[in-house]
């Protein structure tokens, strides 16, 4: 077989899979390299005993229905990748525990003193009414925000259709541009959403890794709108099903996939990438390279130091790494009913203020949010009869493993997991520990190992007002180190999330395919 390819994709994460599938479907001779033995990166699964765990996916918005697929659903439909989606009609329940002497505290549903206990429904109207019942005066401002986000998607549709009417864009959709250049916090203040309601409204910030003070409203609502409008979906067989489905599309379209094949070097010719060295020994050549490895690792790991463009080095050094997650996976020998779970996602926050939550997560584990998910709420048959699957996720920022020795790591994992489980038990007023049949604990080194990202972060670079989707999108071309070497994945313009990563992979593929068509 010839060692020459039209395009080589490094890394079979969500971005790399989507890129390789698009290129193969367009008839390009495509090689996808992955250093692990399975596809997906974050989108994977692992088996312990009689349980199969989901390593990363909490929920996917915008899958839609087979008849009316939305963004993520469309990606799969267009690729011809078949996934058995399970949709569940809930959003989240936010609980802020209260201290004994807190005057705002009350005894919540589970018999535990709380400051906030908000189980939020799907639907803009229902969501806003519920918010109003908790914080009076929230209905109107909440509905205004959903009106803004509805406008925003209309504007996206118009921009995407290619039939842009500049006058209409500026008159009808003027607010969309304002959302883009103002923080979520500024927008909520502007429409008059009460402070306490803001904490509930922005509980999803943890999915983006940036608090309402630091991210623009357009970005926040691009996610929030989808969840509240249509609920969330999960693949039936964990996200490994999604990755396998795309793997199949690549092969069915003549693409080649090599697992256990780590790109160890990018080969250069006349100052431009021309190929990849695999596992330190085999060389393959490609006109284009799409790279699903985080730039902060890809640049020093793959390129000779003197061949990295100065701009690429500055961009890697000048952007803070986004949030890192740590997760405890639990296979329970009781059903969710026996345990007392009736919510899919419960967000446990140490304080009602999102920005304070953000600050409490800096530089350490255990300080901020804990999200507890009961997978059987979304996928009732995800585990054998009489059992259930829970997963607990925390969020932190920075190199939290500094000073941890290998011999202390196991104890650290146990301690972090123990504290998270205890916090959930206390906040929800139920018992978890006696029923743990299987447990796995993923801390930043775990994610570093499987995702190969700085601090093990799955989220790319911190989205912030100065480095938001808008300038990232406009400067996409300038952010790529070479014109035939394009990055995809969470490090790119849309930040984290499966949908964002697929998008960046498709986008990079689209550029490559276009250049081929133009004969370049």
């Amino acid at each position: 077989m010839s060692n020459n390819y039209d395009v080589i994709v490094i890394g079979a994460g969500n971005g790399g899979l989507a890129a390789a599938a698009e290129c193969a479907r367009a008839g390009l001779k495509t090689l996808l390299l992955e250093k692990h033995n399975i596809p997906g990166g974050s989108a994977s699964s692992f088996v312990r005993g009689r349980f199969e765990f989901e390593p990363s996916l909490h929920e996917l918005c915008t899958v839609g229905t087979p008849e009316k697929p939305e963004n993520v659903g469309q990606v799969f439909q267009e690729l011809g990748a078949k996934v058995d989606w399970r949709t569940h009609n809930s959003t989240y329940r936010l609980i802020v525990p209260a201290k004994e002497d807190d005057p705002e505290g009350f005894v919540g549903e589970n018999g535990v003193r709380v400051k906030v206990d908000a189980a939020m429904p799907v639907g803009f109207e229902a969501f806003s009414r519920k918010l109003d019942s908790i914080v009076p005066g929230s209905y109107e401002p909440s509905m205004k925000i959903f009106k803004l986000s509805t406008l925003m998607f209309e504007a996206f549709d118009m921009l995407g259709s290619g039939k842009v009417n500049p006058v209409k864009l500026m008159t009808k959709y003027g607010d969309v541009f304002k959302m883009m250049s103002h923080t979520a916090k500024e927008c909520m203040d502007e429409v008059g959403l009460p402070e306490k309601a803001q904490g509930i409204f922005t509980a999803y910030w943890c999915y983006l890794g940036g608090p309402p003070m630091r991210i623009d409203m357009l970005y926040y609502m691009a996610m929030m709108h989808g969840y509240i409008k249509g609920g969330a979906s999960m693949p039936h067989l964990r996200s490994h099903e999604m990755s396998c489905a795309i793997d199949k599309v690549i092969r069915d379209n003549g693409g080649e996939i090599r697992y256990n094949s780590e790109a160890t070097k990018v080969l250069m010719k006349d100052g431009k990438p021309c190929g990849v060295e695999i596992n330190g020994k085999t060389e393959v050549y490609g006109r284009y390279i799409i790279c699903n490895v985080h730039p902060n690792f890809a640049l020093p790991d793959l390129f000779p130091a003197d061949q990295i463009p100065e701009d690429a080095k500055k961009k890697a050094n000048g952007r803070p790494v986004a949030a890192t997650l740590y997760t405890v996976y639990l296979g329970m020998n009781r059903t969710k009913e026996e345990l007392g779970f009736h919510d899919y996602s419960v967000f446990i926050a140490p304080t009602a203020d999102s920005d304070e939550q953000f600050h409490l997560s800096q530089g350490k584990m255990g300080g901020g949010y804990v999200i507890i998910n009961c997978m059987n709420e979304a996928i009732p048959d995800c585990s054998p009869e009489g059992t259930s699957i829970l997963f607990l996720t925390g969020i932190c920022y920075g190199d939290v493993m500094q000073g941890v020795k290998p011999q202390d790591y196991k104890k650290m994992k146990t301690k972090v997991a123990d504290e998270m489980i205890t916090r959930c038990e206390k906040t929800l007023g139920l018992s978890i520990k006696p029923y743990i049949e299987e447990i796995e604990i993923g801390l930043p080194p775990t994610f570093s190992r499987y995702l190969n990202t700085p601090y093990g972060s799955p989220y790319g670079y911190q989205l912030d007002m100065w480095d938001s989707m808008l300038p990232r999108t406009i400067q996409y071309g300038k952010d790529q180190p070479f014109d035939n070497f394009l990055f995809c994945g969470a490090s790119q313009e849309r930040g984290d999330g499966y949908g964002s990563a697929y998008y960046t992979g498709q986008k990079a593929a689209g550029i490559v395919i276009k250049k081929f068509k133009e004969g370049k």
Partner: protein
Amino acid sequence: MESLLKSFRKKNAISVIMNRQKRFAAADDSVPSGTDAARELARALHPKKQYVKVAAVTERAADVKSFTLVPDPARGTESLAWFGAGKYLTVFVTINGMPVTRAYSISSAPKDTLEGKYELTVKLVDGGLVSRYILDNWAVGTEVTVSAPEGNFEYQPLRDAKTVIGLAGGSGITPFLSMAQAIRDGDEDFELILLYGSRNKDNILFFDKLAALEKACPRFKVVHVLSDADAEAGEGFEKGFITAELIRKYAPQDAPYSVFLCGPQQMYAFVDKELEKLGLERKYIRHEMFGEFHNPAAQPDYPAGVPETVKITVTQAGETKTVEGSSNDSVLQILEKNGIAAPARCRSGECGWCHSLLISGEVYCPKQLEFRRMADKQFGFIHPCCSFPLTDLVLDVPEAK
């Protein structure tokens, strides 16, 4: 249409971009370090391979030897990866041009890794190709390549009871030996009561070491269960086999306990029936994998009419070959016997390292070794180490790194 964000001014996109450019212009222009504590820790715990040398060989019994392995800096290993007691190393050897792997539990203390030492104990397996090779060939100075520590046969304080009844048979003592030392050293925190089955006193591996550990560590107790009719009796000995009754005798009377098993396949067949009598919750019973599965045709659900020999067409890193093998061998064994190195670690179906795509053909996987992911079954991925060919096969197998 009236604005909902009246007091806001639109910001100029150009100024947003200029601002971003300014941030980048001021950034450091050195090559990104490419490292952080999380990555270093992951690398220290999970090296791709460990290059070691045999530093000492100890005869434990007839056809049983322990090998002390130390780092081989000349081949790039400066220190050994820490491990949780109970983990195994996969050994990579090439025998007559045949690249094969075997998993052996580490019998030394986790703390010994800080002094640059692992100990593996190898017992001759009936007809065992690799154990024979290692026992005959490894000597002081032999260069050996092993994996990072692997496996899930470990104590987990949030899952397991405070007391573990360890059930060991033959060389299945090795992970327990490591656990006992880890308890002594303060690296693990549980009570270990070990029921160790041997034929007679002379067959007991590590007898003195176990006795010394028991003396040094009040949280570790060993009872030798001897099956020969004329075997030794007395304090610390029991006659017969590991039965439910015996477990009851040594288990805590009023507190939960976990049972950990490590031994040969025949031992599990016997002990599992005994465990049923105890009515323990499933979470309290944990088995170490027993290694390769043999003679699939003896399984009740094995289909009839399987040809004796099969052809396997295998693509690996873009190269395609067709090889022949016996349907009594696993797909992995057939590949290895034909000189094809395939990725493999546990060889028991569990770890998934050998994960490969079955493009066409049919295989048989014994139920008890079915650890594949659900989507793998749907999309045709198999674990070749526990898949036995029923027809000719076409496979895509990842490179053995």
